[in-house]
């Protein structure tokens, strides 16, 4: 399998089949973000390990650009298949989406957004587009666009909260931070209001409870996004631990055992 990745984009008839530069650059940027995202997912690294060298370009309509993955400086190379693993994974996820299957569990909403932006604009910005690597070829057509939109479609919403470590924040562009819960999803995107910047900065690296409108997708059990209304740091009181609470209230349930006490409480509800 070739490591080379070729993108072909055909412009719309009203542009005589040519592609608008701004649109082209934006699409290539989304491709790069998607490739970097896959790189991080495969390597479980914070930073991508690969860069992409332009090794060929053609403008014979469709415009075509061929990229060769190369290692970034000072990265740990996993093995001789380091690049191949990422390349394979990138195309397998693209093909899953194109087939209408679910992508792998570790493909988060952010990565799906890059796939969506890569494919949007068919008919207005471009007439057709394709990504290939010699043995795989995926059309970025209407089917792909609809499938990725469905994956991103937020089916349900409810007011509620989530707890997690506030570890990443984006203060530029879309104002977003991510919390990393102890269980459930690896991370949850939290969109916040402009007035919350200082509060977020102060709580970076802390365990917080975030409340707001939670958005769910049809195939996920956990919130994929929260429109944040409130953020509260969870106090870490080192003097109180679950361990230290043993026997602290011997008369908590009077003469009753804990089980009897709870049974009585619940009987009252019926």
């Amino acid at each position, binding site marked *: 399998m070739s490591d080379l990745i070729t993108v072909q984009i055909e412009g719309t008839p009203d542009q005589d089949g040519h592609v608008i530069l701004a649109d082209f650059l934006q699409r290539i940027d989304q491709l790069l973000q998607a490739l970097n995202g896959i790189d991080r997912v495969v390597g479980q690294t914070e930073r991508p390990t690969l860069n992409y060298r332009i090794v060929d370009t053609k403008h014979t309509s469709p415009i075509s650009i061929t990229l060769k993955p190369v290692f970034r400086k000072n990265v740990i190379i996993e093995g001789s298949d380091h690049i191949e693993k990422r390349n394979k994974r990138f195309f397998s996820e693209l093909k899953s989406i194109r087939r209408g299957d679910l992508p792998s569990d570790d493909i988060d909403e952010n990565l799906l957004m890059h796939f969506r932006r890569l494919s949007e604009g068919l008919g207005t910005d471009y007439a057709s587009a394709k990504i290939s690597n010699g043995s795989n070829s995926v059309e970025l057509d209407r089917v792909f666009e609809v499938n990725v939109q469905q994956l991103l479609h937020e089916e349900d919403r409810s007011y509620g909260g989530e707890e997690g470590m506030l570890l990443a924040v984006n203060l530029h562009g879309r104002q977003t931070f991510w919390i990393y819960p*102890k269980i459930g999803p*690896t991370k949850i995107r939290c969109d916040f209001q402009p007035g919350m910047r200082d509060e977020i900065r102060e709580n970076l690296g802390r365990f917080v409870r975030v409340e707001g409108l939670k958005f769910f997708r049809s195939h996920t059990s956990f919130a994929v996004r929260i429109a944040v209304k409130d953020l509260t740091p*969870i*106090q870490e009181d080192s003097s109180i*631990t679950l361990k230290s609470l*043993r*026997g602290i*209230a011997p008369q*908590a349930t009077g003469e009753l055992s804990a089980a009897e006490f709870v049974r009585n409480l619940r009987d009252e509800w019926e």
Partner: protein
Amino acid sequence: MSGNEVKRVLYWDTCVYLAWLKGEDNGASVNEGIAEAVDENWDGKLLIVTSTITLTEVLEATLTDESQGTPLSVPARDGVKVYHP
């Protein structure tokens, strides 16, 4: 203990909390089971989850000033997650 590092998740109902707060004797196997869960939780290997209902039921019990509200105050440090349905 973030980003799903916890290996095991265990649900604690109200009576388990109350038994722990009381230091109740429920027989060796139950006592040891609860203590073991607390130890594993302390080591970061086990996450104990519970619900808001547990919190309200625990607060129905006669708690000392020290123990009052503790189920709410220990989550972050002690790996207890409260679900608010």
